[in-house]
């Protein structure tokens, strides 16, 4: 998994490449902890995200809880595979998602 971040004042875009699963989830969690402290707008760019397991989904939902107190969170460029996961779990109703 590769994580690239772009900061623009209090907005940050986190682009994730590869897989977020039980092996990479702690790295993803640490990146969020480090990068979102002084941020009021968080965008996840999932264009190159191949897969997200339950461990990753849990972090994403936790991040949304965090951002609810600070500003907003959006997930963009979601591909079919990842969008299917949001749909079968019911989280497409909860997360702000834009598909590719």
């Amino acid at each position, binding site marked *: 998994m590769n994580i690239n971040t772009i900061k623009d004042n209090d907005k940050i875009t986190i682009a994730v490449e590869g897989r977020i699963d039980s092996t990479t989830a702690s790295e993803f969690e640490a990146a969020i902890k480090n990068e979102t402290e002084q941020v009021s707008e968080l965008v996840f760019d999932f264009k190159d995200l191949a897969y997200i397991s339950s*461990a990753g989904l849990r972090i994403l939902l936790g991040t949304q809880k965090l951002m609810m107190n600070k500003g907003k969170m959006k997930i963009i460029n979601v591909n079919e595979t990842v969008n299917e996961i949001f749909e*079968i*779990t019911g989280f497409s109703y909860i997360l702000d998602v834009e598909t590719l």
Partner: protein
Amino acid sequence: MVTANGYDYALERRLRELSPELHDRFTESVFGLQHILSNYLLVFPTFTDHTELHSLNVIDFCNRIIGTGIENLNADEIYALLMGCYFHDTGMGISEKDYHDFSQKIDFGDYFETHSREKYSDVIRDFHNEFSGLFLKKYAPLFDIPSEEHLRAIIQISRGHRKTDLADESEYPIALKVQSGNTICFPYLSALIRLADEIDVAAGRNLSFLYDLDSLTDQKDIIEFGKHEAIKEVQVHEDKFVIVIETDDDFVFNNIKKMAGKMQKTVDECRRVVIGRTPYVITQKSIELRSNNEH
């Protein structure tokens, strides 16, 4: 149902395949439930996570415990199980008014001979499975549950994640018939949640950016979080659960050993009920500790 990603989301996928209608009812319930589940933080601000993040883990562990056995579950059973995974802890976040109303309906036995009635949070923690059942009974109309039989199943499965007697046929029937012609096996589904919940409560770590672990002052919480820090992974194999630990601290290690003993008792009890009463099976027989340090 085993995909390139193992058993990930197997229950959700299988439900959508067998009954898109029940799957829709389930996913629509998730939206409302995530708000309700967050209420537990008002009662237990430093307690291990019991929101939908915990529910996700419980579903994930159920998927792994069931494994290839998912082919034997019908749509109504999967729906009841998934809903139970979300509802089982709703009793942790009830309002004060509901607490007082529900308390009139719970048999506390001799509990208050040794516990204070004033310690609202302790009573909720110790009887939260019963509060979850009563919560569900009261608020069921919000969740578009398809029938009284489904509601009964979800209530009993949610209650059954703790302390209830899964061997009792009147409370936990092995084949309750629903309108579709399918039957729901209460003891098997309850045993799955009981096991998955115990594994996650023991091992699940709160997300570091949501909880300030340095602010803990309660000794019980400190011990719990010490264990969570040391447990790196819980692997679900076909025949056993493996808890992978990394700690130099003998106190933490001994606490994990004690916890593993308790988990083994739950495994034995769930297997005894499932094998003895149902056509299903729980293949995992033991809890194994795997430490990267010497003790």
